[in-house]
């Protein structure tokens, strides 16, 4: 009997067996000392070498299959498997897992991307002196942003930082270039409406080195933006004014819905503003104790809420701080 036919009949017989005795008999018939399969295996040595290898392989496969079939049949006959029917469409067991706040998720993505470019993460105090928050950042003593209508004050000199930029100064005072840092954190401005919360999160970036250009700033920002929004997104720099950078720019990301063509979401512009950036003003480097004749740098600051709103399509800024868990659970 050739192996193929043997295989078919043997498996068929096993499956049809209706009692343990019958099964035992079948087992013996094929796998017993004088069983048919055993015989084949034993006679392998008589075969010519080129046939021996293949027949041996197939015979062994059949042996394993048959043993498995017999075992399964045995379990079935002895009542070990009762064939329980599972409702596979019923929900799985609920395994609890928490939700990370969307702000943290965006920050994590940015920080991860920043690490690839050598940016380390540093912190700074949220209650700052006016010097670090304004003076050191080349902000005139009469600048409107210092007004009590704009900034929260603890005392004449102490305030809730209005941006993460003071960390730039603190870090430059303590470290020598090359500098590449990210400073994420909470900042505060005296504003509360649909598009402003009195507290929000910023991510500051600072790079100071001997040779660094605005083109490098552009490349770095493109890298970060694509890390968060995807490789198909573009950035656009528009000239702007900040006291602490010169030249300064506002940076837009191309609209994800219309790819820059203009749609309702971007108000027809094709672009959405996401951050401010520029080359560090020489006075700021000086305030940080760094010689602007030898070094220059770039810096940027982005509002994380704004980025999260664009990425996830959140249309109300206040939702981030309402802490309605039905919101949080979507992330």
């Amino acid at each position, binding site marked *: 009997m050739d192996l193929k036919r043997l295989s078919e009949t043997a498996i068929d017989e096993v499956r049809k067996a209706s009692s343990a005795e019958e099964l035992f008999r079948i087992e013996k018939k094929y796998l017993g000392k004088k069983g048919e399969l055993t015989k084949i295996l034993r006679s392998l040595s008589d075969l010519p070498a080129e046939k021996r290898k293949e027949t041996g392989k197939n015979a062994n496969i059949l042996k394993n299959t048959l043993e498995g079939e017999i075992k399964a049949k045995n379990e079935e006959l002895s009542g070990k498997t009762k064939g329980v029917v599972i409702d596979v469409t019923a929900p799985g067991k609920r395994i609890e897992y928490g*939700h*990370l706040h969307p702000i943290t998720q965006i920050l994590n993505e940015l920080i991860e991307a920043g690490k690839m470019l050598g940016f380390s993460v540093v912190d700074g105090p949220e*209650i700052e002196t006016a010097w670090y928050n304004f003076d050191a950042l080349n902000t005139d003593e009469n600048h409107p942003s210092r007004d009590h209508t704009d900034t929260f004050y603890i005392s004449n000199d102490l305030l809730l930082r209005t941006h993460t930029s003071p960390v730039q100064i603190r870090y430059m005072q303590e470290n020598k270039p090359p500098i590449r840092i990210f400073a994420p954190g909470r900042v505060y401005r005296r504003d509360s409406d649909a598009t402003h919360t009195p*507290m929000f999160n910023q991510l500051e970036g600072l790079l100071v080195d001997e040779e660094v250009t605005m083109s490098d700033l552009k*490349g770095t920002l493109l890298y970060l933006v694509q890390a968060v929004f995807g490789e198909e997104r573009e950035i656009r720099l528009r*000239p702007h004014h900040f006291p602490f950078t*010169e030249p300064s720019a506002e940076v837009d990301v191309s609209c994800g819905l219309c790819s820059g063509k203009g749609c309702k979401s971007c108000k027809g512009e094709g672009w959405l503003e996401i951050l401010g950036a520029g080359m560090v003003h020489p006075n700021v480097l000086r305030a940080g104790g760094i010689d602007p004749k030898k070094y220059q740098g770039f810096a940027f600051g982005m509002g994380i809420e704004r980025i999260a709103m664009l990425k996830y399509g959140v249309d109300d800024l206040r939702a981030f701080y309402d802490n309605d*868990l*039905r919101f949080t659970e979507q992330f």
Partner: protein
Amino acid sequence: MKIPLNWLAEYVDTKGLTLKKLSDGLRLSGTENVLLEGSSFPNFVVGEIKNVEKHPDADKLQVAKVDVGKKNGGVLQIVCGAPNIKVGQKVPVALLGAKVGDFEIKKAKIRGVESSGMMCAEDELGLGEDHEGIMILEDYAKVGQPLSEYFGGNEPVIDAEITPNRGDCLSVTGIAREVAATFSRKLKKPKYKKVDIKSKKKIKVEVKDKELCPRYIAKVVEGVKIGPSPKWLQERLLAAGVRPISNVVDVTNYVMLEWGQPLHAFDARKIKEKIVVRRAKKGEKMVTLDSVERKLTPDDLLICDSRGPVALAGVMGGENSEISNSTTEVILEAAVFDSVAIRKTAQRIGNRTEASNRFEKKVPLGLPEIAIERAVELLTETAGGKAGENTDVLSSWIWIQHVGLRIKRVEEVLGIEIDKKKIIETLTSLGFLVEEFDFKKEARKHVGKPYIWGAKFKTHGDMAFDCSYLTDYIYSQIGQFIGYVCLGQYELGEPVKDTELRPGDILFLKGLIKDSPTDHYYIPDGEGGYEKINCKKKEVGHNALYIGDGRVIHARHYEYDRKDRKWRKLPDREAKVVEENVEVFTKHPEYLGARRYIESPENILAVTAPWWRLDVRLEEDLIEEIARIYGYDKLPTTLPSGLMPLPKENKNLNLVCELKTKLLGAGYSEVMTYSFVSEKEIKVTDDKDNVPKIENPLSEENEYMRSNLAVSLLSVAAKNQENFDQIKIFEIANVYSKKAQELRLGMLVKMGNSPETLNFPEIKGALELLLGRLNIRDVRVRVGAGASYLGKGQAAEIFIGKENIGHLGVFGESIRDDFGVKGPVAVAEIYLEKLSKYYGKLKKYQPLPKYPCSLRDINMVFADSLLAEEIIKTLKKVNDRNLSDFKILDIYRGKGLPEGKKSVTIRLVIGSSEKTLTEEEINATVDEVIQSLSSLGGKIRS
């Protein structure tokens, strides 16, 4: 600022530029803007009131019939509340579908009377703040005409948002300059002509506070006739969003919009004697032209006549000197007021006007004389009259800003090489004067000019020099400060050898010292004053500028007599700027050496900022100008090429990240709450005096910086309890004391129903998991007060060794009630700065046991009051080497146990590293444990 395009086209060639191109181009060169194409009032038309009747059911309402033209629906019935409407008036009508603010006009019944549309007040159209009554349009308005057509003929408008440094762009001419530079277009010459002086009238002006008012020009125009402005002028104002009032007022507004110079017109008959510019006295009051009495402070600047205030300078005119229909003689004011003072006054009285906004952003000192001429031209054209001479009080130096631009810096900053020719072209197109700087060329311009000791720019310009002023002046052309006097220049330069001289180096002689100081000099302090620098006593009396090819140029008035080694005064005709061989200095017995001030004398541009650009001071400012006109979009995108600094380890951040990951796994969700809290919240912990208080909170909700996270989390629980049976949340954020901020982890658990254990085991379990996964050992939870918000007997403190690193427990009931939270809530706070000291220890591998371990569970009954801690302590002390671990599996109270008792199930792990234990050996260990625990009064539960 709204710029009507036809107005713009008067000052710059815009031919062929589409609106979109214009708007986009300006945006990319730094003028953010929105294009308002034509119909800025869709569905608004001119209507004529045909009939007015009282509303049958409402005293204050009227029912009007308004003709809005056939194509708009003919005569509409409109219910109106304004009292000022009369038959025959032409009014703005919002048709059905029009939007007034966010409100869409629909057919409606008002007190039972149908109304199909709305007549509008000024504020409803976004033209000013007047809500007194319906806006009445001029007679030339045509029934049915679209309102935007009436307001300036459907003129497209660019609404530009100006950054605070570019006050010069708050004007049509300013935007025209931007358009010219952005699109390489030609500016058109301002077309106005100077009006001849025909009146002898002139008003006296006394400026008492010169700092707050560096320039004041007043001009009398007599014989004017007040009336409405011509149509074209009204249309332009309306297109720019300014309401026409009368010819005189309209002209002042027109010139302000066109040139950026706020102007004011007084009724000359109401000004007595003279104009006085002074600060207000304490307690002084005046009524401004909006009929509000203003209380003034000495920070406010006033325009007065000999009796008292007639205007609040730069902000608003006074009622007493206002132009009226009977005015025949006006005084025009064009002045420069201090930006800070104006901002503060406008802010304090809560009225930031178009004028104050421009003063805030600084008005250049050269502007008033231009603006007043333009105003007089328009005024005499529209209101007639004869103009008198200007009274011009200029109390300040009109600063001319020179900046040096090194060509190579452009590439160093931007990362792209821009052609020198292109750079010069760009700066020139923005109004800068640009010259390729060359020391020889610049210095030779002055050869032959007279020497005057003590000459300086303010008094002598470039007409005469002394030696150090000559070199100072030449370097000032490239914005480089080298020192005012020879001593300062000698000290501030870098020494250079005679053999390596190059153009720009300065050579010094001891010279003749008469009155000059020898031990100090001055440098600018960057704030308009000077800083004194002391140095070693040195006599540096004369200098010369090296111009190359072995030649120097210097301003001299003494000559050295080599024979008697004395300086001899030259006759006046020879005291002048001269060019000589360098040896005159280098071989001079009193030669002190040469100094250098710049990296290279090559490829420097001497740039002079135009008078209107008060924001340009530095080389960087020029580079920004070049970049924005060149186009930021043309810059390449590259990554920084320098060496990457070594990563800084941030242990706190690593800890926070890891904690967050583990917390998610434990089922906790992250929340973010405000760092500031209300008085109610801070009172919970009685920390009112310990935390920073915000002087100017937005509301009572955020007056104090918080001292803990727990209370904020409790508020989150309160907010979510209706939607969730189970709340497990955390926040990682700072808490504050008067001295510092401190990073904490706050966790909160609120499960639907677990009244017995109050959720405590939940939170403790989560903490054990967290600390365990962070590989933090030797953690002990001890009975302790923890925090004041925790219930009595429900609070604990967490220790690592002797250090308290946090607390946990269950909120006290009264606090829960205060916050409206139902059911028990467990909470924990971990002090992360303390915890981080123990974080980051390497995990160490323990070999697995070679021989099998046995598990034995024992059940023992103890007094309920016995702390689990005691049982654990005792178990730890059990002296049996085969007891390799133990765990409290369960603590049970209740049925089957006597009152005051609890049953504790303990699992023992028994094994040896040497062999497989026999049953006897295992039992011996179990007995040993039972024995030890019986010392605590424990009995095996049978």
